[in-house]
């Protein structure tokens, strides 16, 4: 902070100056930031080290900074748990199929809505936006799904709820601001139709928004639990999140009951697996996201722009 720089720095033009109140503010701010950072990171870090530690050391409060009594038992127990792998497989399938369908549906609708020469544009936008604020509710939707014979099928996880109005608005704004109208005029003169223009000109220019929506939708599918809870009965169709609930939350209620050595051992293994299962379920998403973080931000920002 020392020197008074008359040159405006490129970022937001913060001019450094050396008032003492500014220094105090700076110190306070960074102190708060560091505390905040610790509060955010430590629980996550604890899960990681706990998953590699002897469970009795964990529950005895001996694990703070490094794993204690290093063991991979939790992960080994995980490998034996067949349901997790079924869940994993299903979630991957739902995520791939659901993301593909969601992208096609939302991106193409968003592009059409972004075009000023679309007749009935206002009405069509309203048609979608209305569903954001008003819906039939749980039971009528459930009955509809059942009437269409989608209950307990693969399809129910990827098709019925693939229209994301918020996603459409974000993509529409992107198209409006980054695909110049002249482009379409020129293409039209060359005799290019709407569909060809969309696939051969618009899509290649829209990789950023495709990446953003694709990842939002994929994360949604990876983490989705509600639809599976309501619409799936067959355990072979259950996604990972539903199986995680059984391991992480429901079992908790039962584990207090029972005593004896067998029960103790079971409890021990169940406890160990809890840490490793969290890691296994969360790491895939956490691994992708730093790479596409800037796109995520972009998406949120585009979403912030009012029409």
């Amino acid at each position, binding site marked *: 902070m020392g020197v008074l720089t008359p040159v405006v720095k490129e970022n937001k033009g913060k001019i450094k100056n050396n008032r003492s109140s500014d220094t105090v503010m700076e110190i306070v701010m960074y102190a708060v930031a560091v505390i905040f950072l610790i509060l955010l990171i430590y629980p996550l870090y604890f899960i990681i080290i706990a998953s590699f530690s002897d469970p009795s050391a964990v529950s005895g409060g001996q694990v703070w900074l490094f794993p204690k009594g290093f063991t991979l038992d939790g992960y080994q127990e995980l490998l034996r748990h067949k349901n997790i792998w079924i869940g994993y497989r299903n979630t991957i399938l739902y995520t791939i199929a659901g993301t593909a369908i969601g992208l096609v549906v939302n991106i193409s609708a968003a592009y059409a809505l972004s075009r000023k020469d679309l007749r009935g544009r206002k009405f069509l936008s309203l048609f979608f936006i209305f569903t954001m604020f008003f*819906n039939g509710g749980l039971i009528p939707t459930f009955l509809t799904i059942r009437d269409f014979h989608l209950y307990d099928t693969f399809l129910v996880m990827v098709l019925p709820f693939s229209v994301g109005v918020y996603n459409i608005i974000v993509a529409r704004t992107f198209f409006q601001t980054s695909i110049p109208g002249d482009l379409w005029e020129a293409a039209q003169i060359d005799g290019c139709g709407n569909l060809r223009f969309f696939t051969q000109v618009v899509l290649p220019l829209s990789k950023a928004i495709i990446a953003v929506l694709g990842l939002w939708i994929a994360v949604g599918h990876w983490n989705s639990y509600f639809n599976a809870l309501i619409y799936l009965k067959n355990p072979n169709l259950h996604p990972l999140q539903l199986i995680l609930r059984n391991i992480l939350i429901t079992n908790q209620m039962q584990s207090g009951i029972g005593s004896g050595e067998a029960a103790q051992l079971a409890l021990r293994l169940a406890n160990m697996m809890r840490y490793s299962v969290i890691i296994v379920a969360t790491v895939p998403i956490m691994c992708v996201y730093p790479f596409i973080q800037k796109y995520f931000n972009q998406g949120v920002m585009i979403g912030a722009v009012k029409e």
Partner: protein
Amino acid sequence: MRSGQASPGGTFGAVKRNWGLYLLLLPAVVLSLLFAYKPMYGILIAFKDYSPAMGIAESPWAGFKYFEKFFNSYQFSATIKNTLIISLYSLVTFPIPIILALMVNQMRPNRFRRFFQTVSYMPHFISTVVMVGLMVILLSPSTGLVGNLYSLFGKEAPDLMGSSALFSSVYVWSDVWQHVGWDSIIFIAALSAVDPSLYEAATVDGASRWHKVRFIDIPMLMPTAVTLLILRVGGLLGVGFEKVYLMQNDLNATSSEILSTYVYKIGLLSSQYSFSSAVNLFNTVINFILLIIVNQISKKISENSLW
């Protein structure tokens, strides 16, 4: 070329010329009709004695019987009270992401800032199931991190997950922990759009950093904040099902039963379709009215509105 302003051939001609765009819209429109609009017709069952054998149309009318039943039940005041407490409590935490954004904006753009942001978004990608699982593990008074912390100081830890009195606090603050970073992105974006000359002028006038935050940054965030606040208030009774449902247990039941979990239980678990739909419709209508009222008020006093 037929690219005049007065579309030749009238509406029909305009539609025909752009048939490709309508084709692009088709999937989203069809899916919305089937899975968003068709269930709205099913709302009728709230006013009928619905019997699955007879279907929606044939079931006999029941008038407002189910609404009266709900208004007269003891769950009425309990669920509404719990729902309101949780959502008003969440509303109080609304400024936290704004404060975080102001802080990030004050940081010099360096590695620390980037690391800080990356870490602050990270918990957003944890699924609700894993999040509640984490809470169950970490907040356990006997074996969890919180329990260990307390015993470090020789104290007895409170049972956070099994406490009726603390339910709303646990719910709201864990939500803040998970989403504060993500929610701040939109404000950081709004701040990055501030004209640098404002800061320069302020510096010339002798403003400290705090003054700049107070008189430039905060006013700049108001439109975004108001818009988001309207949306939040509009969803006041719409507290999410997933997390509350997963956090529920016998011990916290008196303060964790909210409208959406109640709808699920009476509807799907005990098959009282008409009653459940009535409760749900009541919820939706109140939300809709709130949204409209808040939007009107905001329009009057600040010229910010959703429509």
